[in-house]
């Protein structure tokens, strides 16, 4: 019997301990936000946090998740108000959207550790997250923006929703 926490809830699992966490999340407890892309740790679509660390759930057997706390995209916020989700929407990041849960989970883990990442730090944290649609430029912009937003929120300004959503930040086109 494997015990683990998923998005704050206690869970138990007594199936195949070799089954990847990805399939447990998607098909056993119906959290479909975490995506299957390659099954080999090559694309990052399946990224979740395990004890706060970004991990590829397709390559993490259930046995390795025992007694750990797992956070999925569904656990980031109840209603899409996590700063990274807000910025992702503001900058209109997704195309097909399939990779984006993984991108967001990697970005959140990066920002938790490195609140103001440089481009090089973003590259190294995000390089394992493939985007087949090529949304990288907006992902990069969104991570910078989320970092700024979090910093300015911390700098005493009460974070009202209006000020956070704020002005358009789409690449400035004439």
């Amino acid at each position, binding site marked *: 019997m494997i015990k683990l926490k998923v998005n704050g809830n206690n869970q138990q699992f007594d199936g195949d301990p070799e089954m990847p966490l990805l399939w447990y999340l998607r098909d056993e407890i119906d959290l479909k936000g975490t995506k299957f892309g390659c099954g080999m740790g090559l694309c990052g679509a399946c990224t979740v946090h395990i004890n706060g660390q970004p991990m590829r759930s397709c390559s993490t057997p259930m046995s390795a998740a025992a007694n750990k706390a797992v956070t999925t995209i569904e656990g980031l916020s109840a209603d899409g108000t996590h700063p990274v989700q807000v910025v992702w929407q503001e900058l*209109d990041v997704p195309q097909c959207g399939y990779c984006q849960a993984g991108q967001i989970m990697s970005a959140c883990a990066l920002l938790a550790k490195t609140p103001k990442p440089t481009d090089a730090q973003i*590259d190294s944290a995000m390089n394992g997250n493939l985007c087949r649609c090529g*949304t990288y*430029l907006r992902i990069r912009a969104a991570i910078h923006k989320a970092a700024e937003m979090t910093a300015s929120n911390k700098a005493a300004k009460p974070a009202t929703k209006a000020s956070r959503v704020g002005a358009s930040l789409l690449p400035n086109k004439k």
Partner: protein
Amino acid sequence: MKKTNVTNTNIGRRSFLQVTALAGGGLMLGLYPKIAVAQGPPQAALNPTDFIRIAPNGIVTLTSRNTEIGQNIYNTLAMLIAEELDVDWKDVRLVRPDAHPKYGNQFTGGSSGTPGNWDAMRQVGAAGRQMFIAAAAQTWGVAVAECTTASGRVMHTASNRSASYGELAAKAVTMPVPELRSVKLKDAKDYKIIGTSTISADTKDILTGKPIFGIDVTVPGMLYAVMQRTPVLGGKAVSANLDAIKAMKGVKHAFIIEGRPLASDYPNYLFQDPGFESGVAIVADSWWAAQSAREKLEVKWDAGKWGTQDSAENAKKAVELSKQAAMRTLRKDGDVDPVFSRASVPNDGIKTVEANYTIPFIAHGTMEPQNCTAHFKDGKLEVWSTSQIPQPGRTATAQLLGLKESDVTVHMVRGGGGFGRRAYNDIMLDAAWISKQINAPVKLLWSREDDMQHDYYRCGGFQFMKGAVDKDGKLVAWHDHFVAYGEGNNFAHDGGFQPGEFPARFVPNYRVQSSVMGLGLKTGALRAPYSNSTAWVIQSFLDELAHAAGKDPLQFRLDLLAGTPLPLGQREQGLNAERMTGVLKLVAEKSGWGQRKLPKGKAQGVAFHFSHRGYFAEVAEVTVLANKKIKVNKVWVAADVGSHIINPSSAETQVQGAVIDGLSEMMQEITLKNGAVVQSNYHQHPWLKMSQAPPIEVHFLKTNNPPTGMGEPALPPILPAVCNAIFTATGERIRTLPITKQGFSFA
């Protein structure tokens, strides 16, 4: 730029506005030139009831008829209706229809969403608006001409009266239906929605992990299936250790699928997808159980006639064919041979260049692997599909299962990328068949390996080029012997050549010929099919000739475009030189072409291409580092897709994505060994990583032409632009893709 947001909704079937009318319906743009324009599902009469619903509280629910695969067509189509209906975007909600002829053309591909809906969807909206006006005018006893609309209300200023569409809906239904083709459309200067950036109605669901993709579909009592398809096209599963598989944990069923005869008997895979290949299906109570059981699966295959096919052998065969007389001449102007023979005449000034280009097969690799959920029950079938051509899928599935088409319901679901792969309904057929066999709902999900090894690949080929420039540096002769794949006289699907392709018509002596060799691999449309390889060859070779002529490559192209074009042949497609010149000049200006002295190892390259009705010119600046590592520093794109950019944010991201996709293609190759595909996952067929993605500046040149599509035409020029920059930086010409064949790679 202001962005607005709408959400998805599921509302009941109650219609608040009922009108019937005929609309022009869809227009089919060529996914590939051979079948261009003419083909596609038959056009149906559109009924705006199927597109517009207004609730008493003013909420407007619009049906967006195409498949969403990341191009934001979901919003685009609704924006066109909403604009002419004259409602506020904030009041709009979107729904997906099922696949049904009543929606007209639901074809998603060929960048046809915009041009195929620009008139039709605006007319649907405008017809609805007219009916609200008519209802108000009758209620108030005033003239229609005195009424105006704004924000979902009809106003009569003289009497200071107004009513909302919600209030008028019951009456509007009874109004005569305007003829859609004759409805008056807005003056473009009055647009409030077209030209604004709207965020997909699905975005919030994407960002919060809601189950909105095909792979997320769940049906009560659903089982999970995997399928081991024949590794060789046309092969057959003869026997398998089915009893051992069925004894495994969680496995419910295991059986052989006989499949249908070899698909190469079908010249047109697109609308009559033969699909349904032989293999073994395993059905279990979880996908993981089914997939795990597969590791123990032992199948005896009959590989069939393609079991010895090998990429290296094909390449040798191509070289042999290139030395023989070509099988066909596709287009001929003047005579190239006398020009080429002048090269040996002293002081004549003719210079010739010969070069052989090799195009690999490549795979789609959509991030969401192919999947389909099917539920066969009591003689009826329900399917949840991400198909880009769901109506033909419905037809084909009904035929395969021996059902009436009216007994098949195909629900359209958002797809995690398409790029043309979902224009083939093979997975729908397999899922439907399996569901019928087991008489239960089933989700068939492919692994990445299945997906990469059972694709409809971008077709490879070999182009044997020869060209000549005269003493003034003018391009005077162009010859191309295209050794292609196919059968008999037919090119493999999307593996052909379009004889009107530039520089045809602009060179006095021009000849394109082809020879065809056999292929046992399914090929198909992959983002800017045909163009994605042809542009690379043509724009690279053009560059070779510019250098031979001692001309600036951009000026060489402008000079060529300045000529008077020869006529196009019947069914040929060709570019408009004026529009291409426009984007070429714009990209020269924006990139500072020739303005900066770049250090050694750093250079710019230029290329352009016309496809899917769009004009794209691109400049790439690269640095070539030690060990032939390439860093693409920046890309500039100039585009002419007509008079309006319907959704600027989406348009920009489509262009940037296409450029990144094109750069990825420079690293990719699918090869065959013993008739089967060698590459299996992303490590062997990579896509660009974030650190490799350059900044991409996008500039739209608005011209007085109808708006055209954004999904594809930005891709083709980037490959030659980068290869041309690499040549200028290093003196080495890339004539074989992937670039790793010549020792290059992206830093």
